[in-house]
C-alpha cells in the first residue's frame, strides 16, 4: 500500500538515523505518542535559554540571546535626527532583522532569506504596539534634535523559533542600552560631551535621561500545532516537518500583545490557542527571570 505501511515494516530493521531522514513525520509521531521529543524534551518545554548583555563594545547597547542552538545578536546604535513636524518631542526607533549567510545553509550572499523581512516586520510591530518604549524619552531638544535608535538584530545560528530569540535579544539590548551624554555645540549639532579632567566642557542636554524606562516588556513563545499535540519552541527540523505555527506575545504582566498564526494545515481550536497562551504565560515568567539574572550578573562585574 502507501508509504506509511512500508515504513512500518522496514522500521524494525532500519537504522534510526536513516528512518529519521526517510520518514521524518512518522519518526516524530512515534515520539509524540510517547509524549517526548527526539531531543529529550517534553512537548511543552522550551530549550535552555541564555542571555549575555554587552556583547558588542562598539554599540550603545547589545545582547546575545541563545535558545537552544538558535543564536541572535542584537545591538543598538544611537544617532541624532531632526524630529518630524507632527511629533517634535519624539525620537524614533528603527528595527531591522538580518539573516547573514553564516546562519543557515539556505541563505546565500546577495539573496536575502524570505523569513528575514517577515520577522523584521513582526518585531517592529510587536515592539511599537507593546508600548515598551516611550518615544518622548528619546527627545533631546524639542523640535530640533531627537535620538534615532537603530536596533539591528543578526541571526548567527538558525535552528527554529527565530522570532522568539530575535525578540528576546532585542528586548535585552534595549534593556542594556546606555544613552551617551551629549551636548549642543556652537554649530547646533549634537556631540558627545567629552570629559575633560573631571568637568564637562558643556552642560549635557540629557543629564537624567541616560537609560530607557521599559514599561511592559514583551516576551514570546512559538508553538507547533500538529494533530492534537502542541510542541513549544520548535527546532528548525520540527518547523520543516510540521508546518502550523502559533506565536503568542505577552507582556510581563501576562497581557496579550499579539498573536500570529500564519496559515498552516491545522486549524486552531479555541482550546488549542488557550493552551498556547497558557504555555506562553509560563515561559514569560521563565524569560523574565533569565533577563533579571543576566542584568544582576552585569552589576556584579
Amino acid at each position: 500500500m502507501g508509504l506509511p505501511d512500508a515504513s512500518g515494516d522496514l522500521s524494525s530493521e532500519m537504522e534510526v538515523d536513516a528512518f529519521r531522514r526517510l520518514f521524518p513525520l512518522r519518526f516524530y509521531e512515534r515520539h509524540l505518542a510517547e509524549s517526548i521529543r527526539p531531543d529529550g524534551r517534553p512537548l511543552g518545554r522550551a530549550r535552555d535559554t541564555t542571555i549575555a548583555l554587552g556583547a558588542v563594545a562598539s554599540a550603545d547597547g547589545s545582547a546575545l540571546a541563545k535558545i537552544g542552538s538558535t543564536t541572535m545578536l542584537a545591538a543598538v546604535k544611537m544617532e541624532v535626527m531632526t524630529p518630524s513636524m507632527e511629533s517634535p518631542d519624539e525620537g524614533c526607533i528603527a528595527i531591522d532583522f538580518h539573516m547573514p549567510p553564516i546562519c543557515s545553509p539556505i541563505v546565500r550572499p546577495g539573496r536575502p532569506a524570505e523569513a528575514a523581512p517577515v520577522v523584521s516586520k513582526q518585531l517592529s510591530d510587536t515592539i511599537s504596539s507593546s508600548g515598551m518604549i516611550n518615544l518622548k524619552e528619546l527627545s533631546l531638544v524639542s523640535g530640533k534634535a531627537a535620538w534615532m535608535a537603530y536596533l539591528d538584530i543578526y541571526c548567527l545560528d538558525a535552528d527554529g523559533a527565530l522570532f522568539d530569540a530575535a525578540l528576546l535579544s532585542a528586548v535585552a539590548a534595549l534593556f542594556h542600552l546606555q544613552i551617551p551624554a551629549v551636548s549642543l555645540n556652537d554649530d547646533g549639532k549634537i556631540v558627545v560631551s567629552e570629559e575633560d579632567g573631571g568637568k564637562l566642557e558643556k552642560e549635557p542636554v540629557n543629564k537624567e535621561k541616560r537609560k530607557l524606562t521599559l514599561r511592559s516588556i514583551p516576551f514570546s513563545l512559538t508553538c507547533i500545532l500538529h494533530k492534537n499535540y502542541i510542541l513549544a519552541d520548535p527546532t528548525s527540523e520540527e518547523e520543516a516537518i510540521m508546518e502550523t505555527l502559533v506565536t503568542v506575545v505577552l507582556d510581563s504582566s501576562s497581557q496579550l500583545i499579539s498573536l500570529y498564526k500564519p496559515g498552516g494545515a491545522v486549524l486552531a481550536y479555541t482550546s488549542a490557542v488557550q493552551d498556547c497562551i497558557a504555555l506562553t504565560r509560563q515561559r514569560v515568567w521563565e524569560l523574565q527571570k533569565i533577563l533579571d539574572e543576566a542584568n544582576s550578573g552585569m552589576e556584579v562585574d
Partner: protein
Amino acid sequence: MAGRRGTNPTTYSPSLKTQKTRSTIFKDDWVRPDGRGFQQCRPAFFRTSAVTAASGSAYAEFGNTKVIVSVFGPRESKKAMMYSDIGRLNCNVSYTTFATPVRAQGSDRKDFSSMLHKALEGAVILETFPKTTVDVFALVLESGGSDLPVVISCASLALADAGILMYDLVTSVSLSCLGKNLVIDPILEEESYQDGSLMITCMPSRYEVTQLTITGEWSTPKINEGMQLCLDACSKLANIMRSCLKEATTTSQE
C-alpha cells in the same frame, strides 16, 4: 532632500571624530593605546563549532575584533557554473551595521572576499571535492583592527572543523608601520594613522606563504624585519589554533 521629512530622516552620529595628533607617535615615549609592547599580539581566543547549522564553523576574538566564519558544503555548484574536475571555493565577508564605531550599512566587503579566497585557495586540496563548491562565509561582528587577518585565520579553522582537507592550517598576521616603529597586530586606531602595512598569510608547518600584501613606503631592511616578526607570530598562532582543534575533538569523544 533638505526640508523634506521622509520615512527615513537623515541622521548623524554624535561621536566626535577625535583626530589624535599623529605627532605623538614620533615621540620616544609613545606607548600603544592598549598598553601592549610593539611586538606583542593581542590575546587570541578561538572556538570551533559555533554555528550548528553549518558543516563547520569557528569564532575568533582578538581584543575587540570578533568574527564568525561558517563553512557549508561541499555542495552542488551553482547551475550556471561550468563543469570542473576540481572543487570550487566561494568566499564572502560581510560586516554587521554596528561593527564599526560609526554605524554603516552592513554590506559585503568584495575586496576582503577576494583576498580571503586568494589566501585560502592555495591551502585547500580542491581535488578532493570535484564538481562541488565549498562556501566560506564570514561575518565581522565587531571591527577592532586587523580584521582581515583574523577572518583568514578563523576561516582556516572553520574549514578544518568542517573536515575539508588542507595542506596545513592557514594563519595570518598583519603589522603597521608607524613612523620608525613596527607594531604587530594593530588595533583600529593604530591602523587609522599608519604609514604602511604588511600582511602575511602562511602555512606555518610547511613554511610557505600564500599571500603577502605590502602597502605604503617601506625600506628593504624594514620589510625583512616585519616579515620575520609576522612569520614568528603566525607559527605561534597556529599552535593556539591547533590546540583549539585538539580540545574540540577530545571533548566530543568523551
